[in-house]
């Protein structure tokens, strides 16, 4: 009963996603450097960083939950990835829909919070508080954008959304879903923890936020998780708004396009404080989201 083809496809896709995720992180650092007229690190730098972290000869642990946190986060990211229809590999996306994937993409946040909380470091406590508040603040616009899509296309299944978009043209061509696109792009910025909303790991203020106590292989796990998360979220974005893709290359181009939007915004804006971010999320993106939802439902 066990389809070997599907299993191999899944494992292949996880390896491909991790590799491309690291390349995306490299592109992110390289593009930001080039914008600041610096040479910037090579594209595959995150892979070297992860190898170095894995090669550390000692790693410190604050108890079982501290180790369980990053492991759970990476596991959840991999699970979320396998439910998104990636180009011609449908993987398991027939078994889950928009809401399940949206929630699975948020589960790694709980894993990181669990680990950060049990480390007993005040900086990570402040990081956890900010991470949760950002998540609470962005939940409403995030939901409204997803609802607009579900309502316009009338279905939750991701592969049927992709099929409908192939037929009737991409989501962003529809005015209502264009508003949802803008809202989702702002929320996408906060999900990745990029510049205007990188309050979670504010490097200068609370030294790497929740990740302050992570070293050695725990940090390597978190880096891999961030890579898989980056790949999954850009793929989710492309599937919802840019009409999925017929082959991996087309998907890759769309993902990089989405990534560059985020990078350009990130390299311009300074950082919001946490209550400014909350107020901002509940003002403009929510209003746009409500308009999009009403238009989509018309």
């Amino acid at each position: 009963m066990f389809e070997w083809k599907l299993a191999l496809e899944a494992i292949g896709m996880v390896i491909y996603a991790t590799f491309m995720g690291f390349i995306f992180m490299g592109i992110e650092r390289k593009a930001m450097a080039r914008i600041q007229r610096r040479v910037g690190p090579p594209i595959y730098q995150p892979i070297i960083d992860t190898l170095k972290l894995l090669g550390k000869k000692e790693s410190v642990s604050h108890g079982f939950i501290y180790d369980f946190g990053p492991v759970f986060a990476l596991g959840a990211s991999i699970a979320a990835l396998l439910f998104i229809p990636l180009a011609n590999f449908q993987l398991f996306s027939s078994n889950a829909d928009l809401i399940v994937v949206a929630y699975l993409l948020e589960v790694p946040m709980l894993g990181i919070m669990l680990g950060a909380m049990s480390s007993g470091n005040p900086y990570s406590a402040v990081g956890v508080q900010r991470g949760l508040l950002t998540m609470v603040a962005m939940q409403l616009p995030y939901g409204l954008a997803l609802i607009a899509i579900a309502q316009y296309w009338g279905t939750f299944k991701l592969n049927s959304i992709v099929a409908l978009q192939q037929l009737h043209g991409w989501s962003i061509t529809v005015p209502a879903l264009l508003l949802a696109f803008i809202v989702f792009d702002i929320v996408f910025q906060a999900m990745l923890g990029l510049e205007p909303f990188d309050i979670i790991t504010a490097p200068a203020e609370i030294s790497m936020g929740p990740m302050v106590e992570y070293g050695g292989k725990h940090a390597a796990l978190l880096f891999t998780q961030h890579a898989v998360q980056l790949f999954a979220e850009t793929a989710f974005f492309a599937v919802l708004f840019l009409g999925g893709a017929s082959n991996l290359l087309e998907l890759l181009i769309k993902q990089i396009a989405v990534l560059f939007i985020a990078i350009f915004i990130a390299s311009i804006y300074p950082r919001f404080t946490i209550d400014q971010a909350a107020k901002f999320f509940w003002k403009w993106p929510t209003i746009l989201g409500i308009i999009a939802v009403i238009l989509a439902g018309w």
Partner: protein
Amino acid sequence: MGGDFISYELKEFKLFEPLFRWARKKSIWLVAFCTGCGGIEMPPLVTARYDIERFGMMPNPAPRMADLFLITGYVTPKTLKRIIITYELMPDPKYILAHGSCPINGGVYWDSYNVVKQLDKYIPIDVAIAGCMPRPEAVMDGIREIMRKIENGEADGWRRYRENYEWYRKNQDELFGEGWRERDAKRWLAWL
């Protein structure tokens, strides 16, 4: 702290060692901890002109993730306490780059009551660069020197610290007095 520290056996991945050495060389993370007067020399390194990020180096505020510790300038006993604690927080293959002559023999403050004369007694220094305060080019040269040492495995400050930890510990206690961590923490408790 010292007890289990020594008995820890180093898991030498013989097969991957050259790969890890290359990775350690190509991605060194600096602890954003500037002691003494050289701290102001650090920002130019990450700007467009010198840009150490080309070598994969990134300033990182968390010591748990960092490898390279820059001792920039003279070290007073108060700062040395913080340096020792941060150094011991850093995970294992870690290196120290000392700027100028003050960490070597007290430099200009050779007779000052408040400057540590020989830093090497308290924490192992891998590379020391000349210059009071060295220009970014000199710091980059020092970093290249550290990379060369990592490449052929000579950068073993952390192994020296671990193997003769007792000696280092004795010198530290001699300077600060026995059990200085609890005493200092109690002193700061009044402020919290």
